[in-house]
């Protein structure tokens, strides 16, 4: 068990190392000199060289790589070429804001997915099952950035119920409860787009898992004992269905982070996704490198935690018995 845990951790560390290296190599394959971005065209040659030295761009690629890795390990992610401040400060500011969207979105996602999945499984083969399937597939197929725009069109510009973008209303200074309400009103649309639009994928898992569970003998036994149908579904069958869903958190993490890019772009939410997109448009390499590396690291860690959780929650699945996927 301990050995297996060690192996898992080692794999995760190796993954992260490989990931970070790939990002570094990719970013430096790009044509053009990042120094050009921060340079004044009128600058003299000597000044240019000084700036290159200051940015660490005069060193050879391997040296830059070692420096960068060393920085990563000590939490120094370099300085943004565009914002002129440490990348770690930018990320420390943006990551919590992204979590503010992704965590509630994932909760919404799970609730909608379980509700839909259970309903479809219980009514399997009926018109309700087929209709929900079709509706879910349609919602799943909508481009999220367009859905977001249409929501803004209707609820912000049409009805005037919700703010169209940002995290806070810039015109008024709010405190306490009204401040919180303002934040929540800004969160509603992004969270819904992020959470609901993708729920159908998970709802299908719940549906097929639950249908399988309802065919098991212990369910027949429970029914024979006179357990009400509602309790059979929600307490007995669903509990066993939800176990695999736990590991989906890990699988869903890249999708959630990617979704955050889409949603933050349209709703002008100042999180990681926006930082990434802005950095790409300004060719701000230290920031691009850091964001990509960080999202990869988060995903690897998420998968590791989900694996460990799965082993903890379900005694049948011990870590050492899980084969290669």
């Amino acid at each position, binding site marked *: 068990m301990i050995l297996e845990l060690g192996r898992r951790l080692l794999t995760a560390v190796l993954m992260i190392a490989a990931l970070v290296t790939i990002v570094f190599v990719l970013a430096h394959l790009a044509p053009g000199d990042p120094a050009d971005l921060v340079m004044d065209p009128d600058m003299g040659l000597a000044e240019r060289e000084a700036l290159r030295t200051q940015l660490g761009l005069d060193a050879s690629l391997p040296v830059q790589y070692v420096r960068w890795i060393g920085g990563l390990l000590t939490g120094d992610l370099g300085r943004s070429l565009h914002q002129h401040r440490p990348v770690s400060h930018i990320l420390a500011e943006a990551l919590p804001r992204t979590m503010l969207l992704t965590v509630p979105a994932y909760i919404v996602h799970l609730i909608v997915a379980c509700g839909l999945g259970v309903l479809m499984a219980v009514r399997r083969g009926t018109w309700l099952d087929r209709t929900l399937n079709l509706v879910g597939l349609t919602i799943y*197929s909508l481009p999220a950035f367009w859905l977001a725009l249409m929501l803004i069109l209707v609820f912000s510009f049409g009805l005037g119920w919700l703010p169209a973008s940002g995290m806070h209303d810039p015109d008024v200074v709010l405190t306490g409860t009204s401040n919180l309400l303002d934040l929540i009103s800004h969160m509603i649309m992004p969270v819904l787009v992020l959470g609901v639009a993708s729920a159908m994928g998970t709802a299908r898992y719940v549906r097929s898992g639950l249908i399988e569970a309802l065919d098991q003998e212990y369910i027949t036994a429970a029914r024979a004992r006179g357990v009400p149908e509602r309790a059979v579904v929600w307490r007995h069958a669903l509990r066993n269905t939800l176990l695999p869903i736990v590991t989906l958190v890990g699988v869903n993490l890249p999708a959630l982070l*990617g979704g955050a890019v889409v949603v933050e772009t349209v709703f002008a939410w100042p999180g990681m996704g926006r930082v990434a997109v802005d950095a790409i448009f300004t060719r701000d390499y230290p920031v691009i490198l850091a964001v990509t590396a960080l999202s990869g690291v988060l995903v690897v860690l998420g998968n590791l935690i989900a694996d460990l959780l799965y082993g903890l929650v379900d005694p049948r699945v011990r870590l050492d018995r899980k084969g290669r996927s």
Partner: protein
Amino acid sequence: MSRSLLLALGMLGLVVGVALLADMIVPESPSRLGGVEETLLPPGPDHLLGTDALGRDLLARLIHAARTSLLVGFASVAAAVLLGTIVGLAAGLGPRWLDRLLMGLTDLFLSFPRVILALLLVSLVEPSLSVVIVVIAVTGWMVVARLVRAEVLTLREREFILSARGLGARPVEVVWNHLLPHLLPLIVVAAALRLGNAILMEAFLSFLGLGAQEPIVSWGAMIEHGRRHLLDGWWLATWPGLAISWTVVAVNLLGDALRDRHDAGPRGGESHDPGSVAER
């Protein structure tokens, strides 16, 4: 043929037909600018879907953009499936170290959020249609590789493969004559299920201005143009979004119907990567 398969083929057929016949349906260029009095016209008899801020006819642009969307979708998925199949075959048939290496690589690619990886790749070069195709292919082969590898691992122990080998068939012959025909349904279903994601990805990259550049018309870029006129022209962003949705619904229906028909491919929610708002 099931009803949903017919529905899917009908819906997709409409888009493909419109894309193929675009030049006959709309003879004038979709980039033709209108006069000042023609800008931001709401849907009406002269311009059925209205005009944009440069007076361009939205119906003409919508029809021509179908080509971009389908071209990028089909080309990138074909490339991704080819790449995934090669990796899957190599991993399933090759020595153990190669299998470990390739599957490690697959896991590595899967652990990047696809949108972020695609943005990183696009940002390295000048945006263009071919770049978008390559980027979507490079970020979309992993699921196919895993599926093919898993299938190859079970197939290669089956008697017909063993006997083909025993009869002295060369490895290439075994793959081409015996393995691939069995993998084909799986690959077709996987391709259909990837297609919707590819179209959504193209739309998002174009929306960010990182896709095909003018004068190539694309639905994503049309939405970006409409975004700047949400207040004075709701129709600008609405139509291209509906067109994307129509196409992707058709493609996803097709994927589902094919999977049910061949009983191949991933089951349940796995048919789409779970929870992938990312891939729109």
